[in-house]
């Protein structure tokens, strides 16, 4: 990772932008646009999740901040009458503001403890939306009747295409910011923390503050995705921000690979498409997915993005003892 050369990462973002812009030229099928919008929304979530993974945090409450942004925006629009274009910024700010105390508490512990305390936080948030202030959050029935984004600069956002376009702009913006961050000094230090946090700390890096910064920044981005989600789906339910969708985010990210920003991109796109293709299989879908997860982690432990390198290594190893392996394989 050479610091100054911004050409490679920017080219990657440009590629995403180009692909996103090209899709409507290929198809305007509502279903494809819907899936593509979902992918872009998930991309902002997985990329910001990876930002936290890059400093060694597996933040299981990431999706809660999406929920906080979503509920905040939905309520501000329906109850207070604010414009979507205002809550598009207020929602993420609310999420980020709540991330400061929650992150400060959670980051006092690390490793599996951090994982479990963030899981506890996410359940607290989900159960809160589900069981408290029912008049406000809709309780177990969910929040319905959330309007689509209002007009902006003469543009109406009532069609799938416009919503897709909006999400594409948000996603490319987030990707650009995250790629720059990853290839900047900030990203360098973040990676150093992941490799040896104590060494970084003794060299003057305030590890806590770095982690908190990525936590809050990640939560802001999750909140942004949440605001969009609320006005795109127009129905909110606490389970949309529970363990299951969170687990999927982790799966997307890790299957793609956490080594670079492109891992989550590959993972999210491939897995979302695969899951749409397998939707008909009912519970066989999770059977297949489960098997894929296990095999991927066994044969491509660094994720799909790192697969070419892993495969080369594996091939070399296999070639070294190929005859023996064949013999063993045939044994009863």
């Amino acid at each position, binding site marked *: 990772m050479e610091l100054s050369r911004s050409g490679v990462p920017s080219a990657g973002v440009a590629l995403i932008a180009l692909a996103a812009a090209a899709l409507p030229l290929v198809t305007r099928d509502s279903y494809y646009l819907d899936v593509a919008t979902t992918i872009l929304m998930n991309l902002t979530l997985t990329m910001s999740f990876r930002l936290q993974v890059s400093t060694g945090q597996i933040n299981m409450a990431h999706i809660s901040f999406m929920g906080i942004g979503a509920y905040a925006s939905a309520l501000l629009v329906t109850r207070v009458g604010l414009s979507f274009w205002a809550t598009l910024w207020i929602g993420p700010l609310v999420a980020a503001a709540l991330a400061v105390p929650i992150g400060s508490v959670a980051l006092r512990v690390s490793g599996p403890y951090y994982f479990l305390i963030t899981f506890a936080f996410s359940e607290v948030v989900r159960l809160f939306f589900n069981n408290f202030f029912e008049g406000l959050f809709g309780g177990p029935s969910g929040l319905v009747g959330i309007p689509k984004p209002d007009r902006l600069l003469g543009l109406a956002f009532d069609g799938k295409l416009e919503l897709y376009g909006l999400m594409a702009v948000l996603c490319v913006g987030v990707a650009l910011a995250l790629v720059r961050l990853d290839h900047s000094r900030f990203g360098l230090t973040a990676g150093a923390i992941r490799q040896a946090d104590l060494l970084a700390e003794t060299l003057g890096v305030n590890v806590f503050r770095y982690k908190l910064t990525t936590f809050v920044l990640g939560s802001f981005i999750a909140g942004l995705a949440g605001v969009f989600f609320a006005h795109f789906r127009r129905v909110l339910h606490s389970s949309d921000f529970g363990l299951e969708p969170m687990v999927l985010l982790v799966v997307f990210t*890790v299957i793609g690979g956490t080594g670079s920003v492109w891992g989550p991109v590959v993972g999210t796109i491939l897995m979302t498409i695969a899951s749409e293709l397998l939707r008909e299989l009912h519970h066989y879908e999770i059977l297949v997915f489960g*098997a894929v997860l296990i095999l991927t982690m*066994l044969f491509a432990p660094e994720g799909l993005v790192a697969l070419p390198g892993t495969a080369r290594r594996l091939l070399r190893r296999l070639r070294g003892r190929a005859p023996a392996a064949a013999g063993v394989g045939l044994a009863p």
Partner: protein
Amino acid sequence: MSIDLLVQALLNGFGLAMVYVLVALGLTLIFSILEIINFAHGEFYMLGGYVTYYAYALFGLNYFATLGLAILTVGVAGVVAERLIFHDLRGKALNAFIVSLGLLWVMQAGAQLAFGVLDKPVPSAFSGIVRVLGLVISVERLVVTLSAIVLIVALYIFLRLSRPGRAMRAVAQDADAAALQGVNIEAVAALGFGVGCALAGGAGGLLAPVFAVSPAMGALPVVKAFIIIIVGGMGSLPGAVLGGLLLGGVEGLGALFMGSAAVNILGFLMVIAVLLVRPRGLVGGA
């Protein structure tokens, strides 16, 4: 609110706590040895439940023999899982998370495929209730709790006195040092994973007659187990027992004062509170 009601509520909470402690001990044993969190732990509990359903409810095997069979079967399944997919993942938390999640999905969908989607009843082996000072205790739950305590004590003795048990503790404390002293890490890891799963299987077997069995039954105990080991302290047996009693007590009492659905938030708040005050859990070491 009468004292009777408070005591009964507390008793309710403690009623099944020891079974969840068993699940938690399995989870924490695996964590200590392999440094991974096994998310499919609840699915091994589910497997124990189905072994009980088939052996006890369908074939009429003796209740305690069935329990032994559940422990053994699930233990063997655990060893197989470790050898097949977990043995390379020592300490790789994120990869192990994904792999165990995959295993969870495969096992859950596999159970739906093999055993059907509906809840399957397992008849109670013990019926009736004991009334003491106006308090109600179900004989079934009493037997279950006592069996769980016996298993916990057995685990304690195994870890303290037996050779493989001591090897597990040595690996849990310092794997490198244990390896230098000639402990076969590979074997200990496989056995440890097996014993951990066997504990979950035993818990599943114990609760099968109390709760019936279904493919998704593993989710609940594993969440409780997480809370228990965090509150008690990872890797600590007394800590898990303490965590189990605390969680049971809080949930039992909480149900009196707030909506039962909202009670679930208490356990998680307890996790956050404990980690704030004692990041290594109530009984966890430095």
